[in-house]
């Protein structure tokens, strides 16, 4: 069995642990600086556990690591793993400083290591279908995209966790908006400009709860980003992309991909003129183990397959996640250059701390 280290036993880390551990090809070694979850899981599963990431890297003969720590800690841990020659799965957002993202993407590429970042929407059938239709050219030249995400995360002023602090990589931009932005990058590459960016708190003291921006590409394509994680009318996170082209439009969300074609197109023989609806339930391949949506399992098993040399083609490599980090950094810069309004999220200086201190 291939040994894979997993660091960070928070909400995403535990989910990744369950999914990865269910894969018979992998043995998962766990690591977390705070002892409670670590000791409990160790006690009831018998898996090997470390409090120190460095010690785990040193003592275990790992093939890969899964990094699910608070975002601020991603960069140093990814670097340490890559320098040891390990393949890396990193939770999103990749790095808070896009220069670091680019450097780590280069380091991984130079060493020929397999990388994946947890942008699971690229594994959702409806969004994959959207990519296939865009690439076919059936909707003509894309003029505009509306990229949205809404959900009920922060609904009142509350105590602090790292998720409510932008310096730690928390907030609506890094947590929510990163997903639709990543899909824009997948479909259209990196935008050239960000304008009119609003990063505003609603209930949070130290970070943004709503994100709006106009992104433009030099070829004339434009996109509006509209994201709010303080919207209780949504039961859970809902991400939607709507694309307008000269020959049609596509709307996609987690459930379905609706396409309107003004005329039929030879590259998509199964699509007729007018509306065509494809459901994620039909578009999705079964996964060997299911926890919370096929996409979470698929992104992990794609990574593990590549690591063990059993196929696998991780679509969210470090280079692609770097595009998203750069787009978000561009939005922050644009926001900072705008006149400060009353609800503008405070700019929080990065704290200098060791990545083991929480």
């Amino acid at each position: 069995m291939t040994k894979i280290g997993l660091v960070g036993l928070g909400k995403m880390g535990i989910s990744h642990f369950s999914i990865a551990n269910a894969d018979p090809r992998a043995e998962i070694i766990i690591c977390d600086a705070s002892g409670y979850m670590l000791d409990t899981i160790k006690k009831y599963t018998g898996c090997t556990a470390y409090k120190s990431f460095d010690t785990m890297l040193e003592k275990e003969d790992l093939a890969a690591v899964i990094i699910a720590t608070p975002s601020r800690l991603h960069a140093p841990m990814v670097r340490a793993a890559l320098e040891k020659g390990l393949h890396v799965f990193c939770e999103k957002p990749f790095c808070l400083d896009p220069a670091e993202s680019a450097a780590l993407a280069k380091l991984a590429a130079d060493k020929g290591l397999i990388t994946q970042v947890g942008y699971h929407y690229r594994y959702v059938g409806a969004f994959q279908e959207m990519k296939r239709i865009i690439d076919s050219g059936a909707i003509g030249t894309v003029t505009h995209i509306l990229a949205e995400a809404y959900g009920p995360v922060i609904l009142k002023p509350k105590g602090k966790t790292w998720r409510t602090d932008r310096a730690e990589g928390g907030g609506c931009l890094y947590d929510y908006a990163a997903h639709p932005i990543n899909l824009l990058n997948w479909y259209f590459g990196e935008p050239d400009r960000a304008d009119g960016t609003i990063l505003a708190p609603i209930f949070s003291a130290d970070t943004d709860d709503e994100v709006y921006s106009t992104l433009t590409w030099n070829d004339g394509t434009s996109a509006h980003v509209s994201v709010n994680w303080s919207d209780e009318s949504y039961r859970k996170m809902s991400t939607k992309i709507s694309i307008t082209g000269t020959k049609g439009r596509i709307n996609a969300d987690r459930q379905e991909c609706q396409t309107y074609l003004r005329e039929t197109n030879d590259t998509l023989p199964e699509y007729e003129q007018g509306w065509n609806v494809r459901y994620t339930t039909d578009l999705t391949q079964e996964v060997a183990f299911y926890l919370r949506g096929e996409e979470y399992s698929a992104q992990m098993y794609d990574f593990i397959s590549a690591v063990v040399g059993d196929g696998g083609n991780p679509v969210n490599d470090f280079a692609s996640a770097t595009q998203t980090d750069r787009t978000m950094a561009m939005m922050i810069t644009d926001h900072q250059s705008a006149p400060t309004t009353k609800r503008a999220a405070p700019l929080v200086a990065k704290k200098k701390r060791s990545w083991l201190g929480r």
Partner: protein
Amino acid sequence: MDKLLFGDNQFFGINHMSEEKARAQSMRFQNIENVISVLDAAYDEGVKTFMCTTHDRIALVCDHVRANPDKYPDFKFFPCMPYAHKYANAVTDHGMMGALTHFMPDDGLLKTALRGSVSLATKDIEGIIKILVDVEMKMFQGVQTPVIFLQNVIVDLLLGMGMKDAFKIFHDHVLENYDAEPGFITMNMPMLFETLDGLGIENPIICSNINKIGFRTCGGFDRYKEILENEKLRAIAMSVYASGAIAPREAIEWLSQVPNIESMVFGASSRTNIRSTRELVGEYFA
């Protein structure tokens, strides 16, 4: 168990096909009277078991059934716990440990609270699981709950992690303290069955996707069929229509040929649909 169990997805804006439909359902069912009127239609049609999450709004249904014992002598709840979003949101608010303590009772039940704090300190999940079950079951006091389920998100999380003891703890606690049968919902039926078998839990009640096209039968449709044919379990089929991909008659005819199916859970928002499902089940499972 009745052959037909009435599910609750439609009442909470859960629709695997369309967010628009889900929102329309949320609007219709935000008034609890509309939920109760559909449950009444089901009850009149002879579908008397309501398999429901422990969502806060279910407490209103419990209140209604408790208040009208003459109207609902045979109304049974199959609670499915926990309502996962409640906990996921609490983790975002309070962190992992904060969320756990957040759900510990603070109503003066000193003994329970003590068991909780001791459990937390000793990393003993037995005490924690028992308390969480007790907290979730509070709303069902005084109504019939002959089967109590652990929801798939938590079952599959524990299953993947390999925290098998949790299943046994839940199983024994439900049997001993609620005079009820424990049940498990999963998206990974073969793996769960083998795990429960290994724990010595015999003839378990397992609710999983069982449908003609093998939609979301993780671990392999063939393995599902093998276990249903060769092993001893009380299977409850969900997603029988595979999110609308199979016509009801075809779906139910196929299901009636599968061995070991105790029940089928389905959702509907109208008396017409409830009746036609009941008639199909009556026809094929006769």
